[in-house]
């Protein structure tokens, strides 16, 4: 297995590094430093014929971990983010944007290199902690506790969350699987946005719900951004990137293509992808 990793890395280093060298601005306080980061996912259950005979044959051939595939998602990425930065991350599907956010949050362990942060970066989102079989009420409590709030904090935020989600009368006592997809995502966003963070990481797909709720959530994100030390925003909507960010990272195939002020990078990205 170690051989496979080595081989992969060799391949990844062959192409010319088009990424600009990292310049350090000594006059500003860094809040996130990403140093030559490599992330490799291991996916189980991929490939193979899926019957007992072929699996047994693989064992006999001594193929170690036959059904495991490795995905080299981030291939040597470096940059420095400073206090007060609002950084947009753009790139095509599968370029490694979401993986990068998870790595900054410390949720995906790096294969090599490192992510250094001041304070705790957090992804905006609690979907994974919520359970569809539980009522909205219980999910609010569970989600807030999962984000690290104390029971007192949950109590004080509870009404605000319910009001923000704007659910119809009585729905808060129903299990979440009875909600429409719009209602569910509204409640999820309301829970996630109830806590302020040191470094806020926002993945796309925030544009859920109707136009009114979208305006409401954009406003809420602005508030959160003001409270946070730095914000990373992953989005396909280049408009929202232009609106919210002062700096943009363009990521392609797990490498940094460009790092600079918003208009320069977005214009270059549009030119390259023909959007």
């Amino acid at each position, binding site marked *: 297995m170690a051989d496979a990793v080595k081989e992969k890395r060799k391949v990844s280093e062959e192409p010319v590094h088009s990424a600009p060298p990292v310049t*350090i601005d000594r006059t500003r306080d860094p809040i996130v430093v990403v140093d030559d980061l490599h992330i490799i996912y291991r996916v189980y259950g991929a490939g193979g014929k899926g019957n007992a005979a072929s699996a047994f044959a693989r064992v006999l051939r001594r193929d170690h971990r036959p059904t495991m595939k490795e995905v080299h998602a981030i291939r040597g990425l470096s940059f420095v983010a400073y206090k007060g930065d609002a950084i947009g991350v753009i790139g095509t599907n599968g370029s490694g944007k979401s993986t990068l956010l998870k790595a900054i949050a410390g949720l995906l*362990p790096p294969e090599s290199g490192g992510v250094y942060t001041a304070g705790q970066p957090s992804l905006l989102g609690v979907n*994974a902690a919520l*359970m569809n079989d539980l009522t909205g009420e219980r999910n609010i409590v569970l989600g807030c506790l999962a984000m690290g709030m104390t029971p007192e904090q949950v109590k004080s935020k509870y009404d605000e969350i319910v009001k923000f989600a704007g659910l119809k009368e009585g729905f808060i006592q129903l299990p979440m699987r009875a909600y429409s997809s719009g209602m569910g995502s509204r409640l999820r966003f309301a829970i996630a946005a109830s806590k302020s963070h040191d470094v806020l990481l926002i993945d796309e797909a925030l544009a859920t719900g109707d136009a009114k709720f979208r305006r409401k959530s954009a406003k809420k994100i602005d508030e959160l951004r003001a409270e946070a030390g730095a914000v990373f925003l992953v989005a396909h909507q280049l408009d929202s990137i232009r609106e919210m960010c002062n700096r943009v990272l363009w990521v392609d195939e797990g490498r940094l293509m460009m790092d600079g002020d918003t208009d320069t990078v977005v214009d270059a990205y549009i030119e390259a992808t023909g959007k």
Partner: protein
Amino acid sequence: MNGHPSLAEFATGYGLKQSAARPPLGSYIRQLWQRRHFIWAFASAKNIAMYTESRLGQVWQVLTPLLNATVYYLIFGLLLNTSRGLPHNTFIPFLVTGVFLFTFTQRSVNSGAKSVGDNLSLIRALHFPRASLPLAYTIIELQQLLVSMVVLFAIVLGFGEPLSLNWLLLVPVLIMQLTFNVGISLAMARVGAFNRDIQQLLPFVLRTWLYFSGIIYSLSGLMKSSKIHDHPWIGHILEANPAYVYVELSRLALLDSYRGYVHQKLNESTVHLWWYGVAWAVVMFLVGFWFFFRAEERYGRG
């Protein structure tokens, strides 16, 4: 790695910390303590969600152990007659106590092994000490045990065992067993997180453990009456088995007639079982916690 060695120095120079690094043990335990409400809420939520699909709902929490005990009684009590000299009225409460308490440990091992793998999305979305997961799963099993305890008490009383002060001894026994279960569940969580195959293997291991632990027969009775009597070391090994220790101590606390049978008829002392119980609980907890903690930053990679 060969790229920008100065970048890492620059970061640490400003006091930035590695975001995926394992915290020191002290602050890890503090974080875990801060998450106690989450652990409890998560366990309760899982417990509620577990039965929402079935019509009888929470009733299954009681029915499942009851049906289990019935099956064991039919096979081992009636068909195979493993009671070995235990009076009939003692054997049923003896069997049910054994099955219920062994199930607590068995299920903790099982769910501990799944606790990381089943919650990868949670691990990849939120920050919390990962030991919360196996802990929460053991709490789920504890909550289920407490429900089945009510059934157990009813059965024990129904078979004419007296309610005595000895029942209070069940509390320290359960605390020891819980501590042991947390430890083994933490250890299994790390093993299960990195070796998925273990889940296919566990049912066999656990069933073997069940048959060795004197759940469906009296081990002290067996040691007196069979060939094992000639090889006392086999008996000593079987007696040191943690599952046997906790089950036997619970029986001695709950069942007056069984206590009489062991102490008077077999003339056995059971004090050493308490020492085994304490030792297993402390050692398993410390080893399990340390073992799990050592891989903290690697959970979630898959």
